Each structure stands twice: as structure tokens, then as C-alpha cells.
């Protein structure tokens, strides 16, 4: 049942992002999904928001007071506002409740105003910069959580996914797309929140001066809404395109460098260069289109804010010329704005600008949010993939005991081709089972199934008589070691490469493994011995040497089951012989699978399983099979015939 499901429900392929069909709600949902990553940082995020609000209030409040003093009481000779007066310990009789203040008084205000300004600015700037750093720290933590989650998801996905996926695309999703999560908090929660508050506050103040002007501002965002609604799908489509073309370019670089040898020997440099440049141009032109749309969107939004703002600003100025009463004169009296005056119209205009600017920002944020939505979508796509190989709900860990492994009527096919059509055999503990068969008969794939890198379609694989799907897949993998056919080394030292799978291994254990793999001799000849850095491609080692390091890595794990996939193909016969002797001696109780073509290797196995056309054609000891008349004897003949 589950095997059928795994084929139909979990193709492990990205579904297409529907940029056109995304509705406002979908975008919001996308952002809600970011919550788990933000959640651990929620207290810091709240502290951040609170300090941002405090900073805003501080700047507005001190600005209000200081600029009021400067305009009305230094530059002009109006009475001081009650609040400012009490702040500077000024006698209300002489400063507030007067028609105008004297030049002497104005002069004496300069120093206090300056002190006030220095304190206000000093605190504001310092706080502002600390908050900026705090923000970076919080955002990085949020992004880290998402990155790590994506990476672990990528590791969970089966080989089906990895064979199809491009590495560069993975890099792009992990680095660039996931980074958008950092902006969620800022762009979709904090900024809009602050903008809305600023907007309402601004409108409130303006309305206190004049309700009509307040109302004009209140509805200034309607035309913007219309254009935002119309343009959003285009923006999203273009941003999606920009991201996928950039990811393509990353893949292009990665593939070219990975295959650099092939490129060079086939003189494909020109070909790859052209492909690179094409991808580069595509990436740039997609970004160009997206950003230009955003540019024009921004200008339109500006026009929509600026025009009502001009009306309000000029109206405020004209009202000040007339010296009209303000709407809430009693309330504004305290600030010295009972009538429209120079300071009053300046404050009204400033608040109007603040309100209008907030709306403009909100829509600009919305434009940017379209890109973030596309980025997050691409990051979430990875998380949405259902791993084809998953633990059953009641899976138990596999306890480490000596095991035999049995394949019972195993059926399996890759999406492209059918492979196994009922494979059955048993590999007892303490024996070497050789898997032999023509190229492409699926010897390696059979071992991938044992490791649950793919899920089988039908049949059973049993460890100690228990179906492996009853175990958690991690515990199965912990008990099996695969020495791969392709010699994969990591960019670290020889020592670390050998203990890569067993970081706790001591140096002595590492040397033991190297000895069994007959690698000690050449390792000691390397410039830095075990500490030699191998770099990514480890080009300095010969294939045979790399093969032995990979072998040592596998041996070091000392797992009950060991799979050696063409372990000795690049070794000369003498070395090969020694290694197998070592293994037999040192790992006598293990279940060992040996995939090979070489007769010299096959001979050392306790039993031979001959695979062909998706089935086990023959099984037995070397003597039995070689002396018989089955396919294996023909296989032997083919080899010996040549010698």
C-alpha cells in the first residue's frame, strides 16, 4: 500500500508556482508559514518592535517640542507652549500666558534648546544604531532556522529527487530564496504596523487642526489600491522569472566546473562559455524587467500620495495666512496652536507628510513583498516535498546485533525503467556475498534499496527476519555502510575524510581502518600525512588511492552490514587481494556484500548471487557455479577466455 502511494503521491518534484493565480490570501498564508522560524525569536522580536516604537515616539515627541521651540520661540516671538515651558522650567506667567515674548527671552532660549536637542538627538541616534544591530542579529537567527530546515529536508529526500534536481538551484534556494524569511518580520509585520500607526497618528493630528484635510488624507490610498491590485500578478510573475533564471545560472556554473575535465578534453570551453553567457543574460534581463516594473509602480504610488499632499499642504498654509482657528483649539492650546500659525501649519504639514508617506511606504512594501512571496515560495517548495522514503508511524529503531539480510520477491522500477522483477536471496552473517551480473543489471540499485535510498514497489527486504520498513530508516542506515563506486571525498584532511562518518573515532582507529584498506603506505608519503587536505576534487590522488580512502571510511564504521561496491576496480590485483584478506580476518562476523566484475574478487566470496534481467539467475559458491553450466560459468569463461 505505502509503496503504491510513494509512487503516486510523492514524486519528489517541485510543483509549478502559480504566480498569476496567487491571491492576497495566499500571500498572507505564505507569510504565516514563516512563523515557526520567527517563533523562537519572538521575545527578541517583540523587544525589537517595542524599541522601534519607543524610538519613533521619542523622535516624534522630541521633534515636536524642539522644532516648536525653534520656530515659534526663537525664529518667531510667539509664546512658549505649556509642555515645552515646563520641560525647560520656565515661568508660565512670563512665557506662556503672554501675547509675545521679548527678544531677550528669545536669546536666553537658545542654550536650553540646544541642550535639549543634543540630548534628544544623542539618545535617538545611539538607540537607532543599537536597534539596527539588534535587528540584524534577530533576522540572521530566523534565516538560519529556515536554512537548516531546508538543508535537512534536502538530506531526507530520496535519490530520485537528487538525481533530478540541480545543485545550483539548491544553492540558490538555500541562500537567496530562504533569505526572504528575514524580511517577513520587517516588511510584513513591523513596518506595516508602524506605518499604519504613523498614518493614523498623522491623520489624527491633522484632523485636530482640520477634519476636512484629515479626510482627504484618509482616502488618499484608494487609487493606489487599484493599481496595486492590477500590477501585483505581473510583478510576481516577473520576480519568479528573475529568481529561476538566476538559479539556472548558478546551476550552469556549478555543472561546468564539476565537469571541467570533460569540458577541457572535448574543447567545450566555447560551448560552456556561450551557455553561461546566455544564462547570465537571461538572468539579467529577467531582473531588469521585474525591477523596471517595480520602479514605475513606485513612481505611480508616489504621484498618488503627492497630489493629495500638495492640496493639504497648501490649504494648511492658506489657513495659517487667514489665522483661522484650529478645530480642536483647546487641545492644541498646550502646544501653542490654538490658531493656525507658522509653527502650527508646519506641524500640520509635517504630520500630513508623515501620514501620506506612510501610505506610500505601505504600497512600496507591498510591491517588494511580491518578490519575497516568490522567494519564499521557492524555499517552501523544498519543504513541501514529501520524502518518498518515510518512516512508518510505528517504526522502531534497529538494534545492533549480528544480522542476516534477506531479499524476498523484490520488485522495483525507476521512473525511467523497470529493474527488479522478483529478486530473492539470503545473505547470512559472517559471510561475503558477491553480487555479480552484467553492467546495468542493478547490483548497486539493489543495495540502494537495502539502505532505503529508494522504496521498493513490492516484496520485502528482511533484516534478522524483520521487514526493514518496520525500522526507522536512520537506524537502518546506521547499521549499514556503503563504500561507493564513485569515490566521493570531502574537502577536508585525509584523517577527517576517513572518520567522516564516525567523527568520534580516535586516530588509532583511523589508522587501523587505513591499514585494513592498505592505504597506510601512500598516506604516509603525502606531504602532511593524515593531515593532508584533499580539496574538493582530490585531484592529487590516483583513483586507486581515493578508492582506498573511501574503503577505510566504510571499514571504520564497523557496522554489522558492509556493502563494497566495486571496491577494487581501480586497484591492482595484489593490493586487492590483500585488502580482502584483511577484511576477512578483521571483520569476520559481519554481513558483507561485494559488488564486482572481477573474478579474482568474486573468488574470495562465500556465496555468489548472479543477477540478470531483474532476477537472481543463480546462487551458490564459486566452485558450484563455475563448474556448473549456468550463466555464471559462461561469465567466468568470458573472463578466462581472454587470459
Amino acid at each position, binding site marked *: 500500500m505505502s509503496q503504491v502511494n510513494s509512487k503516486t503521491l510523492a514524486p519528489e518534484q517541485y510543483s509549478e508556482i502559480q504566480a498569476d493565480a496567487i491571491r492576497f490570501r495566499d500571500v498572507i498564508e505564505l507569510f504565516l508559514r514563516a512563523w515557526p522560524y520567527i517563533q523562537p525569536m519572538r521575545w527578541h522580536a517583540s523587544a525589537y518592535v517595542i524599541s522601534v516604537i519607543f524610538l519613533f515616539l521619542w523622535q516624534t515627541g522630541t521633534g515636536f517640542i524642539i522644532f516648536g521651540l525653534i520656530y515659534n520661540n526663537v525664529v518667531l516671538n510667539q509664546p512658549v507652549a505649556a509642555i515645552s515651558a515646563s520641560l525647560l522650567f520656565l515661568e508660565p506667567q512670563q512665557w506662556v500666558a503672554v501675547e509675545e515674548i521679548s527678544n531677550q527671552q528669545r536669546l536666553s532660549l*537658545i542654550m536650553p534648546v540646544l541642550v535639549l536637542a543634543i540630548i534628544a538627538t544623542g539618545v535617538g541616534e545611539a538607540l537607532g544604531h543599537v536597534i539596527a544591530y539588534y535587528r540584524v542579529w534577530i533576522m540572521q537567527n530566523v534565516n538560519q532556522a529556515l536554512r537548516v530546515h531546508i538543508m*535537512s529536508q534536502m538530506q531526507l529526500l530520496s535519490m530520485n529527487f537528487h538525481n533530478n534536481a540541480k545543485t545550483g538551484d539548491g544553492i540558490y534556494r538555500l541562500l537567496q530564496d530562504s533569505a526572504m524569511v528575514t524580511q517577513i518580520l520587517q516588511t510584513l509585520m513591523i513596518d506595516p504596523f508602524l506605518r499604519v500607526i504613523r498614518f493614523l497618528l498623522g491623520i489624527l493630528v491633522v484632523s485636530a487642526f482640520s477634519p476636512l484635510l484629515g479626510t482627504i488624507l484618509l482616502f488618499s490610498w484608494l487609487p493606489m489600491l487599484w493599481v496595486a491590485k492590477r500590477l501585483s500578478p505581473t510583478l510576481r510573475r516577473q520576480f519568479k522569472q528573475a529568481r529561476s533564471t538566476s538559479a539556472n545560472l548558478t546551476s550552469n556554473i556549478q555543472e561546468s566546473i564539476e565537469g571541467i575535465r570533460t569540458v577541457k*578534453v*572535448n574543447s*567545450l570551453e566555447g560551448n560552456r562559455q556561450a551557455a553561461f553567457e546566455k544564462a547570465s543574460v537571461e538572468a539579467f534581463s529577467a531582473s531588469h524587467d521585474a525591477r523596471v516594473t517595480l520602479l514605475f509602480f513606485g513612481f505611480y504610488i508616489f504621484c498618488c500620495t*503627492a497630489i493629495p499632499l500638495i492640496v493639504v499642504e497648501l490649504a494648511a498654509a492658506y489657513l495659517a495666512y487667514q489665522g483661522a482657528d484650529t478645530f480642536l483649539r483647546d487641545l492644541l492650546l498646550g502646544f501653542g496652536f490654538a490658531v493656525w500659525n507658522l509653527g502650527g501649519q508646519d506641524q500640520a504639514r509635517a504630520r500630513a507628510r508623515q501620514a501620506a508617506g506612510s501610505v506610500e511606504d505601505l504600497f512600496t512594501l507591498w510591491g517588494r513583498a511580491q518578490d519575497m512571496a516568490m522567494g519564499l515560495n521557492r524555499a517552501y517548495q523544498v519543504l513541501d516535498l514529501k520524502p518518498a522514503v518515510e518512516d512508518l508511524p510505528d517504526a522502531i529503531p534497529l538494534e545492533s546485533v549480528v544480522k542476516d539480510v534477506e531479499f524476498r520477491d523484490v520488485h522495483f522500477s525507476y521512473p525511467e525503467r523497470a529493474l527488479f522483477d522478483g529478486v530473492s536471496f539470503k545473505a547470512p552473517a559472517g559471510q561475503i556475498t558477491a553480487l555479480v551480473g552484467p553492467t546495468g543489471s542493478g547490483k548497486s540499485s539493489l543495495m540502494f534499496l537495502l539502505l532505503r535510498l529508494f522504496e521498493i514497489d513490492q516484496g520485502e527486504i528482511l533484516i534478522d527476519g524483520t521487514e526493514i520498513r518496520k525500522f526507522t530508516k536512520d537506524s537502518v542506515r546506521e547499521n549499514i555502510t556503503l563504500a561507493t563506486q564513485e569515490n566521493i571525498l570531502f574537502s577536508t584532511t585525509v584523517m577527517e575524510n576517513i572518520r567522516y562518518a564516525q567523527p568520534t573515532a580516535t586516530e588509532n582507529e583511523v589508522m587501523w581502518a587505513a591499514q585494513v584498506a592498505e592505504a597506510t603506505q*601512500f598516506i604516509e608519503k603525502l606531504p602532511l600525512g593524515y593531515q593532508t587536505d584533499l580539496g574538493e576534487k582530490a585531484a592529487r590522488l590516483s583513483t586507486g588511492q581515493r578508492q582506498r580512502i573511501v574503503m577505510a571510511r566504510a571499514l571504520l564504521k564497523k557496522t554489522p552490514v558492509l556493502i563494497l561496491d566495486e571496491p577494487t576496480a581501480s586497484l591492482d590485483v595484489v593490493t586487492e587481494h590483500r585488502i580482502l584478506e584483511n577484511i576477512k580476518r578483521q571483520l569476520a562476523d559481519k554481513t558483507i556484500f561485494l559488488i564486482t566484475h572481477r573474478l579474482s574478487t568474486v573468488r574470495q566470496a562465500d556465496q555468489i548471487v548472479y543477477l540478470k534481467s531483474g532476477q537472481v539467475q543463480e546462487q551458490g559458491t564459486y566452485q558450484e557455479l563455475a563448474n556448473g553450466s549456468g550463466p555464471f560459468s559462461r561469465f567466468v569463461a568470458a573472463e578466462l577466455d581472454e587470459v
Partner: protein
Amino acid sequence: MPEVDNDPELISNTRALEVIGRAMVYSFQYKFELAVKAATQMTSIFWILFLPWPAKLIVDYVVLGQVEVSSSTVLPFFFLPLVELLDGREALQITFLLGGIFLLMIFLVGAYGTDGAQRDAATATLAEGEDSATRSENQANSMHSLVSGFFGLFEALWHIRIAHRMNHQLRSELFHHFQAQSLTQYSSRSIGDVVYRSMYDTPSISNIVFNLWVGPATSAVNLTVTILMMYLVFRSEPVVVWCALAIAPLNFVMVLYFAGLVRKYGSFAREAGARTTALIEESLVNVLAVQGLGISNHQEAQFEAASAESYRRFRQLTLVRILGSFTAAFVGNAMLFVAFYFLAPSFIAGKFAPGDWFVIYGYFGAIAASSTYLGRLWLDLQENVTGMDRVFSILDSPRENLEEQDDEVQPFRFENRIELKKLNYQYPDGTEALRDIQFHAEKGEMIALVGPTGAGKTTLAYLIPGLIEPGSGQYLVDGQTLSGRLLAALRRQVAFVFQEASLFDVSIAENIRMGRAEATDAEIRRAAEIANAASFINNLPQGYQTRVGRSGGKLSVGQKQRIAIARALVSEKPIIILDEPTAALDPETERGLVRSLNEIRTDHLVILVAHRLATIRSADRIYYLEDGQIIESGSHQELLASGGPYSRFVELQTKGSES
């Protein structure tokens, strides 16, 4: 080892200037485009100079009802017509006139005042993450104008055009260079680093260029003109002008200290970022090994650590920049306070019109902004210098000298014979790999290189087509001594099949066609048949159109090998070198392949590295290597008869399979 490594602390001031200088020279290719950009930006500054005045107009002409103040303000020339237009009109009339003027300004330059809501700057910056890599995206696509409206939009479009062209060119050049490096240089550089340099370091070029050409030039003009204006207007209060003058130099001196720090932490941040990229790449590419060894958790933990480290490094950089920016803000504000202190009495004494305060405040804002901008520019520049240094150090690293300098490589076709006389080869770190090699091969022959693991067989096989450059000794091709140019030509005559065949993620047909772009489908099929690949390809549902997956992941090793051989065959190159072509093949398939090799050797020179007797036996001549030296050579029969090391090698193998 020609390893490119820049110890971040070693980017000295001199090196920084050198990098900047090179970036400037690089930008000369775009002098026309940059000149236009600079011109438009200068023009936009004049618009900006006008922007503080509307506030004065509103105050003096509307709010205060056109008060006649004994103002000592001298109005700038471009302002006079406007004043004349407004003089003596009704307040309401003026209000409407101003409204009209503001509207016009919006459409023209997208601004009618200095406040954020009154002024639009044409940019399209997207959300970015908190590390250097994600920020590079905005750098590569930078577009900016100080103003907006028809004028600013044009400038922004022009800007992004230059940025794109410049970045595209540089990353193409860098990629070209990466491809032109010899294989030994790849051993210690990870693919992730290449990706990081090509994608995230190259955008530094456009940033440096804009920061250096356009930014300072316009800021300088901006500062000069603003200060000049202030002088004209406020010369009765020279202290104001002095304060304005002091901001920029003070600012710069304060910021200078941070420059070196930014450079240092910028390098750290980028290197940590490159390591993270490398780790992602490694985890994804080697996922089989990772899952097969059950070490997903280990790999995840490593990634987590690398990623955390790159964030930490970026945070340090942020801290330095924040301190720098705080210093700049401090200077700007301090000067404004000083100016206020000296100016206020003049306002009280009635020397200035009240509206003048807005002009002063506006201009001070502009000056402080320009000089803060200059300071930040300098800091940005340092960060970009680190990126640029990472790019230039690649462009400076040695290329293979067989890289064709021009396209007039003499038409060369390998005719007959390759001969190596007393040839030596050392690894870049000095380790001796091949010694005293005497080797010759002729068309129509099949040559086998045999020997124990690590004997230097593959190195010799790399040497023949010039994948690595020979050291001392003689290399003759058809009697000619091998020169750099000839080596380039020779490489085009060689098809190489590697031990670990690498395929690209395109269709099988395309993979084979990489041998020769113009090969017909029929030729591809024919090559696949000779390589014994036709049968399995035909069994695939999509046949030759099957995409092979990443690095050919969907095929078995043996299948990949045969496609690689088909690729070599289709190339029609006279020399074919195969490195362990049959290691992963079963005996039957191997026999088929040997048969095909025998077939093609009549008009090719076939060289193969092999362990398996079945493959070696039919060679015309066998070179037996040990410890980087050729011990003996001859045909299978001859060598067996002589009873040397080769015969012992054969004996072991036969015994291994027969005893």
C-alpha cells in the same frame, strides 16, 4: 601550488587602492555610458538645490502673507523669475499658482520638497537577507536616481543598463578564466567558491564604479554648489558657512578609521559565505555518500555551523559599519547645532526672514546627507574592494598557456607520431610524479599503460593531451617540438574518456554530441553502437532523448562510461585516450568494447590505462610503470617472455582468477 588565497588581513591600503584603480581602468570601457549617467545625476542635483525653496515660498508668501522683511537674504538667480511671478498677488492666487508649479515638478522630477513624502527617488531595491551573498543581488541590479519623475526614471533605467552590462561582462570574463585554468588549480578550490566568486563577488564592480565615478563627483558638486549657495545667501553670517564647510572633512576623517576594519571584516564575511556555499554544494552533490554512510546529521550540523559562522562574520561587519555611520551622524548633527547657536541671534535681531530658517535647515540637511553619503560610500567601497579582490585574484592567477591567444591557431592535424623523450613532471607542490619518460606512439596503434596503483599511469595519460603541462624534457608531435600553441592544437586532436565519466544534465544524444557539435543523429547512433551503448539506450523509454539527470545520476557507472566512449568516438579525433574504460564493465561488455577498440584503432591512435588483462592483451605495445617511471615496454607476448615485472603482474592476475 598556485592556490589563490587572500588572507583578509593582508588587503593593505595600497592593495585596496590598486584594486580600486583596476576597477576604474576596467570601467573605461563604459566611459560614454558613465558620462551620461554622471551628467544626468549632476543635473538632478540642480533640481534638488531648488527643493528647499518651496517651503520658504509657502511660509513667506502664503502663511505670513508676503511680509516685507528687511531680509539680508540674497535670492539665487534662478529663483528671481518665480518671485516676480508671485510678487504682489493675492494669497489665494499664490496658493493656486504654487499648486500648479508643484504638480509640474512632480511630473518632471518627482519632487517638490525635501521631505521623504515630498520627494521620490527612483530606485527598485528588493528585500535582501543579512549576509553578503543575498545583498549582492541588489548590487548587481542597482538602479538609482536622486530624483524621480520623467527625468529620474530615465536616469534609473540608464543606470541599470550600465550595471547589467558591466556585471555581465565581468562575470563572463571570470567564468572564462575559471575554465582556462589548468586542472591542478581545481584540486584545492571548491565549486562553491567558484559559484560565490562568479555570482556574489562580481557585482562589486558596478558598485565600485558607481561609488567612485558617479557618487563622489556628484556629491562634490552637490556640496560645492550648496555651500556656494549658502555663502551667497548667508554671507552676513560667515559662521554658518564655515560650519557647513566643516562637515565633509570632519566626517571623512572620522570615517577613515573604520575603512580598514570594514575591509577586514568584509573579507571574513565573504570567505565564510563561500564556505557555506561550498558546503551546500558538497552536501547536494555527494548526497549518495552522505545517505549511504548515514551521516545526514553530521552534514547538517556542518552546514549549520558554517552558516552560523557566515552570519557571525557578517554581523561583525555590520557592527563596524554601524559605528561608522553613527560617527557620521554625530558630525552632521553637531555642526547643525553649532550653526543654530550662532544663527539664532541673527533671527532674533531680525536680520533674516523667518522662512530663511527652512532654507538653512534644508541646506544643512543636504550637506550633512551628502557628506554622510560620502563617508558611507567610502565604507561601502572597502567592502566592495574585498569582493573585487577575490575576483581579480582569479583573473591574475596563471592560466594554462595553451589557451589559444587568438583564433589564428595554425590548422594542425595529428598525422602520425607522438614521442616523449626524457620527460619529467612535477606536481605544483614539487612532488615528483613522472621521471625520465621515454614513450612513443603512432597512429594505428593501441597502447596500454599498465602498473600498480599510484604508479603515474593516469598522470602520463593526462600529459599526453596536455591536460597538465609537461616539465623538463622533450615532447615531439609529428617531429615538431610542442609549444604552447601546438599544445592547444593537439588537445583538439584528442578525445579523452575518464575513469569517472562525467555527463551533463541534458539528453543522451546531446551528451554524445558534445564530442562534435555538428554530428548528425545517424553518427551519434553509430558511435553508440560501436561503444556498445546502443542496446541499453534503446531500452530507455525516451531512448536517445532521455535526460541523464544530474551528473548522469540516473545511469549506472558502466552505462555512463559507454556514453563517454561514444562521445569520444563521435568527435572523430585521431587520438583517443581511455582511462580505465572497462573497470566497471562486466566481462562480456568489456569484450564487446575491446572488439570495438580494435576496430577503430586502424585510423586512430588509442591509448588506454587498464588493469584488466582482457583489455591490455590486445595492445600493440604495453608500457609498464612503477613509481613514476617506465620500467619496461613491449607487446604482451614480448613482455611475458622477458619475465620482467609485467610478467609477474600477469601471473598474479591469472593466479588470482584461476587458482
